[in-house]
């Protein structure tokens, strides 16, 4: 039985961005209900629901909350709206369509963990979305959802909206906290984890936008209800961002466990221009490539991992038969090189050299030994970088070498990109 969308169910409602309209769809009743509960009860509820973080790592949200040390205050909640994984545009959609849903989730999480000052860190490029959140905060403050003694329940909460200024690394939670503290957004050593020593050295929880959007629904309908949606280890739905060579790219909220085939063929309308599917990437720029033989894999953290990739932040990039896999990998490698913060040598230098080799591949100047050299550099970066950004820079290119090594050989033997040539010939 198809499950109705949870987070996006009211997105067709006109003016949902306005507080009154959001309230009419049941908005803020989750927060009101939460305020009637004890914070510990809420933590247990979210633990029991099985909700896992939607930012990429899939860590159980309730567990993350329960790591906060007892009796240490102040403590902070930071909502990570620094969405910048190539292929990913769901948080932007969730904010644009329903900023109050994001805010309600933040308020519930803040109350549950005993935080009186929450932050939203939004990427600098998302200015209209920043403004939507700002307007929502003003409305929520006027309505008494934010401020001192919220709804007469004796709980104080304030929310600060903070704009980033263009740095992919700040999506990594410790880099985000460093950036929020005003410094260059470089990651910190873990442990100590943010739950112990986070923002301003205080216990901190960092939750993704989509993660907090689930909270009002869990609070209203219960952990058991949430447990009936999705797979045994992947409860609920996910908003999948689909891009690339499909007829209908866009955001699709689907129950976890839905086959990838359904997302691409039914919701996305299949591969465009009646072409054949060559490959797809289920988790954004970082994640390993999968092949048509993987179409029946379920949209689920564990199932995708078993198939050899990762669900990451829920971005499905679809590539048809005309795609140059070397060029696709080149773009991602250049992205990681551009976005490397420079703190650690494997990532800073490794991505630089990988980008150089990929450029020479496309230019037809690569040597036969360069394919193995790429693998060697990848090996030197993965597991040896300071943060996962460095590691992840190698996953897609290495998986492309694994499955499409012949395309690299072709670039070398034909001294250039065989796909570009065929396009130029077709045009001529």
């Amino acid at each position, binding site marked *: 039985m198809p499950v109705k969308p949870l987070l996006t169910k009211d997105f067709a409602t006109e003016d949902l961005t306005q507080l009154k309209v959001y309230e009419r769809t049941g908005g803020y009743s989750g927060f009101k209900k939460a305020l009637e509960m004890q914070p510990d009860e809420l933590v247990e509820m979210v633990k029991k629901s099985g909700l896992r973080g939607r930012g990429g790592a899939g860590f159980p949200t309730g567990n993350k909350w329960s790591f906060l040390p007892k009796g240490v205050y102040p403590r902070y909640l930071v909502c990570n709206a620094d969405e910048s994984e190539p292929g990913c545009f769901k948080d932007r959609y969730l904010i644009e369509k329903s900023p109050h849903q994001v805010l309600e989730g933040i308020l519930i999480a803040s109350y549950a963990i005993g935080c009186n000052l929450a932050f939203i860190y939004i990427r600098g490029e998302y200015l209209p979305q920043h403004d939507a959140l700002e307007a929502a905060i003003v409305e929520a403050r006027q309505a008494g959802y934010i401020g001192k003694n919220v709804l007469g329940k004796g709980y104080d909460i304030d929310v600060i909206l903070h704009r980033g200024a263009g740095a992919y690394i700040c999506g990594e939670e410790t880099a985000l906290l460093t950036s929020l503290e005003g410094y260059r957004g470089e990651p910190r050593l873990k442990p100590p984890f943010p739950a112990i020593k986070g923002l301003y050295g205080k216990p901190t929880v960092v939750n993704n936008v989509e993660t907090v959007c689930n909270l009002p629904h869990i609070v209203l309908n219960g952990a058991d209800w949430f447990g009936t949606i999705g797979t045994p280890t992947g409860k609920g739905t996910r908003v999948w961002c689909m891009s690339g060579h499909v007829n209908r*790219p866009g955001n699709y909220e689907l129950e976890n466990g839905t086959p990838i085939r359904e997302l691409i063929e039914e919701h996305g309308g299949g591969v465009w221009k009646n072409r054949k599917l060559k490959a797809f990437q289920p988790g954004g720029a970082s994640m390993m490539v999968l092949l048509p033989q993987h179409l029946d894999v379920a949209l689920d953290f564990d199932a995708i991992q078993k198939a050899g990739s990762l669900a990451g932040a829920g971005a499905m990039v679809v590539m048809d038969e005309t795609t140059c896999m070397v060029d696709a990998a080149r773009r991602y490698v250049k992205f990681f090189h551009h976005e490397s913060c420079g703190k650690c040598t494997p990532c800073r230098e490794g991505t630089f050299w990988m980008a150089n080799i990929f450029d020479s591949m496309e230019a037809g100047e690569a040597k036969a030994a360069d394919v193995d050299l790429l693998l060697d550099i990848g090996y030197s970066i993965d597991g040896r970088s300071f943060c996962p950004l460095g590691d992840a820079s190698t996953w897609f290119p290495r998986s492309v070498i694994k499955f499409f090594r012949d395309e690299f050989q072709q670039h070398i033997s034909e001294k250039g990109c065989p796909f570009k040539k065929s396009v130029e010939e077709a045009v001529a």
Partner: protein
Amino acid sequence: MPLAKPTVEHIRDLAQRYPSKQSAIIPALWAVQHEQGYVTKEAMAEIAEHLGLPSSLIEATASFYSMFLTKPEGRHDVVICVNAPCMLRGADEMAAYLQRALGVGDGQTTPDGAITWHSTIECLGACGGAPMMQVDHHFEENLTEERIDTIIERLRHPVTATAPQAAPAAAPKRRTAAPKRARSES
């Protein structure tokens, strides 16, 4: 050029707003860029003074983030994404067309000072509407050559000719507030 009084007041307010005044650095840089269009060393020194922090700290932070400009650019900022999801839907062709249409290279400003454009490998978060470009913080999606023409025309010749000639101090050089007009037709 010293900072305008409202900007200075805003920066001082920011310092009170956060549990640590360091956190006000990035919002203060935004405020300066909003007023002056870019961030000079002198402006960073002023931020430092108002926040009571060393200016080396302001410079260290500012130089890390790609959105802070250190030199003046055109009145409008056009950024076209060429990362893989956009590439798959023809971003290279659109970037080449944009370059031909504007007649200046990647990173340059048109002679009339209207538009600075550059391509970026940094994903802007609009892959579902690829190919796309960001025009003054506004996303223009599903680009075609015709749409690029229309957008450029609009930027060069704004319909509303009511903008004051001598910009008062309050008029931002580089807007940090979103356009109030509706999302353009796609």
